[in-house]
């Protein structure tokens, strides 16, 4: 039996923070929840057609000529449209990086306005399988597929480049020659200059520091791999356009369609329900395929469904990054200078590359390195002919942690210090006391659980098991980044509470639930806030469908912050609800509102508690109209700092085969306030699957000669299964506290950010040789050991 977490002393929460099933668990376990592919069954949309898009067989090419006549003649084909059609030539150039999902933005305010490198349907392809040239609508998916095969294209094939270092060299093939004369994305207003932070003088400090270490780390193209492949259905058969999709951004999708197709917002309805996993895929809602599907629906006068196959869903990835890090310190371990330089493989389209490369390091330097006098950060995002890359359960944090945890381990070794002590000595944050309580506790708990002091070896010098196996432990830590003040860009967050006459509640806290468990957090938050009414979670119905015609703006499942943001708003709506109840009770209780109170659902006059009635009695005496309170507010901008999280790993390395077995993972998140313990632990445990996969087995492999990706399938792209996973210990803490009633932060992304580096440091501790490019496959281990 594992132990439950220890809540903050005297927190006295009735519902928030509890161990309990998810509110949707029963429906999901029975297979009753409908995802987009279920919602859009042909039987529900009479006359529905299926769309397919032409995909480039070349890594870099332009269409010289296209002949669709054979495709058009295939029985069952209803429409073939090409990039030459006015419906497409009239569309503005765009990108898939309008927003990171936090806020809704218009075309003019999109985050990466300088990189309009995508066409909804163009003639130019920048990676193998790029969606380009022509789209088909047909009576079945197979006919649509067949029609695509019948399209005759003459390609003008260009040289291509996959490696960002090659792509940076003069004379390298230019990926977007119409836009830039170099593959390095130019500096722009959001991310700033190439050197985007230059505090103090790192070079001068390196020259005089007692100790200077440096190192590199390389992160690869991991992919989100949601089981719920991208899919949409568009019905634009009259003036109104309705989009059903599994985008996690309903309101942003509506804005995107409105802005791109020139429709007023009330003529666009976006409907989304449960999504089978998101993990940052597609970055945001603004997918070009929504638009070409819409155009096909308009053209054919029929609803059109477009669905990626699993192979086509290798459509987004975590941005690969090569990091160089250099750190200067005094003999006593005080860090005086830090320098990081990164080169990111943007892939074919810019999307949120700059976000990944510049925002994440800047964030950590603002909190954890704020007091370090010399810090320099430098970054280059480079176009190549690989699949586009940016967000995946975090935006750049995993890549940065790979170097951060590396230089920490290197420096500690050089100074002959325990890296835990080095972290406590050096990292905290700008607004907090020093040493940082959250950081200390996170590391203390992790160290205890993994057995740090007993199991940590002199690198490579530990005990040998079965004659050939060596074990080691390692960790990495990172500051979290989803406190409420970091969510200000969201703008107003609306919710509404409907109190039914019988005392049950309808909660409208709109969000597209992607599996994070925020719906359960909200129901717990709502029952906590309404406990004066005796409302338990079972008495609350949470609406899971977001429909932009009838719902309020959805709070997007990014930053894992929906776990508390809406609950904070719910907490502030309570006074208004009480006021409404008292007002209605005035005539019945013959008393003034100010003289009343409610406890456990009983309204009474303070001076005479016998003069009372239940809310149900009150409303049944009246007109039976439910009380509705709608509240919307901005996130609390008070700068409360952020908590820390860390991962510890124990590994066993087979020095004969090079295979790494992870024996034990510990994941520690300081949450501020645990909103829903079983859900938070599910995030912690679940994150390790993705983190360990990235560290050891997951990798997209390209044929270097042709640029063709070779493993866009789940046989060869190796996601860990149940049989691969070690013992995992999740530890939830409540040390730091943010603003508001709960003072929580999002933890989903921060469960796996440190996993790869923790495993890498453990491997070093086991074998005494550092391997700094993931995934750490057996051949890399053997090479490091000098065995191949």
């Amino acid at each position: 039996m594992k132990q439950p977490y220890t809540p903050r002393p005297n927190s006295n929460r009735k519902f928030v923070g509890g161990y309990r099933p998810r509110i949707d668990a029963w429906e999901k376990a029975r297979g009753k929840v409908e995802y987009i592919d279920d919602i859009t069954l042909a039987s529900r949309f009479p006359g529905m057609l299926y769309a397919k898009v032409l995909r480039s067989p070349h890594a870099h090419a332009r269409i010289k000529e296209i002949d669709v006549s054979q495709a058009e003649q295939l029985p069952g084909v209803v429409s073939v449209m090409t990039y030459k059609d006015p419906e497409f030539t009239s569309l503005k150039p765009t990108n898939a990086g309008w927003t990171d999902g936090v806020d809704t933005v218009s075309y003019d305010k999109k985050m990466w306005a300088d990189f309009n490198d995508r066409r909804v349907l163009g003639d130019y392809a920048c990676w193998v399988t790029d969606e380009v040239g022509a789209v088909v609508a047909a009576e079945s998916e197979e006919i649509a597929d067949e029609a695509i095969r019948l399209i005759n294209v003459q390609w003008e094939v260009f040289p291509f480049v996959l490696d960002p270092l090659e792509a940076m060299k003069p004379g390298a093939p230019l990926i977007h020659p119409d836009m830039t004369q170099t593959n390095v994305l130019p500096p722009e207003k959001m991310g700033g200059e190439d050197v985007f932070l230059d505090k103090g003088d790192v070079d001068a400090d390196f020259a005089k520091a007692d100790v200077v270490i440096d190192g590199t780390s390389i992160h690869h193209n991991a992919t989100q791999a949601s089981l719920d492949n991208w899919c949409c259905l568009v019905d634009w058969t009259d003036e109104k356009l309705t989009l059903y999709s599994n985008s996690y951004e309903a309101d942003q999708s509506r804005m995107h369609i409105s802005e791109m197709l020139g429709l007023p917002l009330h003529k666009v309805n976006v409907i989304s329900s449960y999504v089978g996993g998101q993990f940052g895929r597609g970055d945001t809602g603004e997918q070009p395929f929504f638009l070409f599907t819409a155009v096909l629906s308009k053209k054919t006068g029929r609803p059109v469904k477009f669905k990626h196959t699993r192979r086509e869903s290798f459509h987004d990835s975590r941005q690969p990054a090569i990091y160089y890090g250099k750190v200067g310190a005094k003999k006593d371990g005080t860090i005086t200078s830090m320098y990081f330089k990164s080169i990111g493989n943007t892939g074919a389209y810019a999307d949120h590359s700059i976000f990944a490369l510049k925002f994440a390091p800047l964030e950590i330097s603002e909190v954890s390195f704020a007091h370090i006098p010399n810090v320099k950060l430098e970054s280059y995002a480079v176009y190549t002919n690989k699949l586009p890359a940016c967000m995946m359960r975090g935006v750049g944090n995993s890549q940065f942690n790979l170097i951060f945890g590396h230089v920490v381990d290197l420096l500690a070794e050089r100074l002959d210090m325990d890296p835990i002590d080095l972290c406590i000595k050096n990292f905290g944050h700008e607004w907090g006391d020093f040493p940082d309580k959250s950081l200390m506790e996170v590391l203390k708990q992790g160290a205890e659980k993994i057995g740090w002091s007993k199991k940590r070896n002199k690198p490579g010098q530990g005990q040998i098991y079965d004659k050939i196996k060596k074990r080691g432990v390692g960790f990495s830590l990172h500051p979290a980044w989803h406190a409420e003040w970091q969510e200000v860009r969201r703008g107003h967050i609306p919710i509404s509470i409907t109190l039914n006459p019988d005392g049950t509640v309808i909660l409208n806290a709109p969000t597209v639930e992607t599996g994070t468990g925020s719906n359960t957090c909200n129901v717990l938050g709502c029952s906590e806030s309404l406990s004066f009414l005796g409302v338990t979670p079972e008495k609350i119905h949470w609406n899971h469908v977001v429909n932009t015609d009838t719902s309020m703006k959805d709070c997007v499942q990014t930053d894992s912050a929906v776990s508390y943001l809406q609950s904070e708003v719910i907490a502030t709506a309570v006074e208004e609800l009480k006021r409404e109840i008292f007002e209605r009770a005035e005539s019945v209780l013959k008393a003034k509102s100010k003289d009343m109170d409610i406890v456990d659902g009983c309204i009474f006059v303070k001076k005479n508690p016998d003069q009372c009635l239940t809310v149900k009695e009150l409303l049944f005496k009246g007109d039976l109209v439910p009380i509705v309170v709608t509240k919307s507010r901005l996130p609390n901008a008070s700068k409360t700092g952020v908590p820390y999280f860390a991962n510890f790993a124990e590994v066993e390395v087979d020095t004969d085969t090079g295979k790494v077995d992870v024996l034990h993972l510990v994941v520690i998140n300081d949450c501020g306030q645990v909103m829903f313990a079983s859900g938070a632990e599910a995030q912690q445990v679940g994150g390790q699957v993705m983190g360990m996969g990235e560290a050891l087995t997951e990798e997209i492999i390209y044929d270097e000669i042709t640029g063709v990706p070779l493993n866009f399938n789940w046989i060869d792209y190796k996601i860990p299964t149940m049989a691969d996973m070690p013992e995992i210990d999740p530890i939830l803490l409540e040390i730091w506290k943010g603003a508001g009633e709960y003072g929580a932060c999002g933890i989903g992304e921060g469960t796996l950010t440190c996993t790869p580096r923790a495993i890498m440091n453990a491997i070093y501790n086991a074998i005494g040789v550092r391997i700094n490019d993931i995934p750490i496959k057996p051949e890399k281990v053997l090479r490091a050991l000098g065995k191949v």
Partner: protein
Amino acid sequence: MPKPSKGTKKTVAKPSSKIKIKINGCWHTFEPERDIEPTMTLSYLLREKLGYTGLKVSCDEGACGACTVIMDGKAILSCMMLAVEANGHEILTIEGLAKDDPIVEAFAQQCEPGYGTALQCGICTPGFVMSTKALLDENPVPTMAEVKEALSGHICRCGCYAGIAQAVTHASEKIAKKGEES
């Protein structure tokens, strides 16, 4: 091996008789060519033609387990089987489980400290439930190694494997308890 497509008509010899498949306890009769084309997968028949959407098609090539159903007591990948191959066989989908099925119950209720829930986004869950049913029907008290072996053909990208393993253990206990009661 070419992957079977689902709707394209191909010229093949007409089977002489009707296709009969028992689904969740009821026999269904299908007219070859008209209802079931030779290249149609079982997952397509169940989802698109009959509306059993509890099973999910994600990879459509036998790599993820989301489309798992039970045929004659064994867990099978319905995306890897042609509908015609089910002729004369008995199929159980998640819709065919009793409302108080102990496995469904165990998956839904899993929340004990230290393991997380047995599901998050839930899209892989019906597949896991069906494989668990096939496992426990054959081996009511499996060891953890046997559970891992039986369920390692499934991908849960939310990574709820630890919670799922707990749910399987609890389901096994629930079934044993029910057996004692009856």
